[in-house]
């Protein structure tokens, strides 16, 4: 009995230690906001290498790529061929996005991205993604940029452009 209790306590201590060692840096800043990109299901995410492949491929299956974050960051660098569509965290930005996609067929292939800050902290992608889904778009993907656009796209050597 005493051995069982000691074993359980040791197991709990070991698990706690393991969890502490694996605690991400963002933990000290609090949990991700429910509105963050964290809310986007994994199967609705697109990896950078996959988007790069799609953009380079010959054929008609190229997505419309929309940046839904900061215009200042967009002006410095954005995915080649992408358009600025308004910040998803702001009402005016969502209106801009809505106006941009409203005329499109609901089966259009659309990729949204931001890259302003770490994925779990991005305030723009979640609302923008949800808006398009609510509008009935069925082929919407969110580009998974774990850190930011610079680290996860530009530094990888994928095509970029600058300017507003």
């Amino acid at each position, binding site marked *: 009995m005493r051995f069982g209790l000691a074993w359980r306590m040791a197991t709990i201590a070991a698990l706690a230690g393991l969890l502490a060692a694996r605690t991400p840096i963002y933990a000290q800043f609090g949990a991700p906001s429910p509105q963050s990109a964290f809310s986007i299901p994994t199967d609705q995410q697109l990896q950078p290498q996959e988007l790069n492949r799609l953009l380079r491929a010959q054929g008609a299956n190229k997505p419309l790529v929309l940046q839904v974050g900061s*215009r200042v960051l967009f002006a*410095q660098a954005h995915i080649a061929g992408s358009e600025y569509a308004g910040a998803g965290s702001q009402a005016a930005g969502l209106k801009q996005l809505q106006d941009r996609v409203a005329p499109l067929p609901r089966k259009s292939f659309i990729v949204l991205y931001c890259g302003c800050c770490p994925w779990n902290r991005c*305030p723009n992608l979640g609302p923008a993604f949800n808006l398009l889904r609510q509008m009935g778009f069925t082929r919407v993907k969110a580009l998974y940029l774990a850190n930011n656009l610079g680290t996860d796209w530009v*530094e*990888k050597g994928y095509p970029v452009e600058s300017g507003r």
Partner: protein
Amino acid sequence: MGSFAAGGRTASAADSLLNKKAPPFTRTDLNGKALDLASLRGKVVLLDFWATWCAPCQAEMPRFAAWQRQYGPQGLQVIGISMDDEPAPARMLVAKLKLNYPVAMGDEKLGELYGGVLGLPLIYLIDRDGTVRAQFQGETDPKTIETQLKALLAQP
């Protein structure tokens, strides 16, 4: 629209600022006062690129204000550069957080001067001689920044 070859334009460009003179810039801060990086020679500068929509940035800023109070007498000067598209939300947050250091609006030109600010937060530590000594991008343990900050303050 200009295009450029990717590959190391951001972090590596920013890294290339390490141990080089910090690119000079002048701005007018949100209080209408002139802000000239060159005039801060002799001080240790914490240059913080941030935005109101950046949650980690907001978590750091009260700490930077505390450091300004604590280390200001030793020669620290914190400078905030908002990468928001408009000044209004930046003004509101600066007032809400009661920041005690100058904050100015940034833009793509200033961002490119500092190697491309393509993710926030982005923090530079500049020594008393005006040389960039450290760069932190993304969520960083504040103890790491403070340790390097104190080391720079300890230098004459």
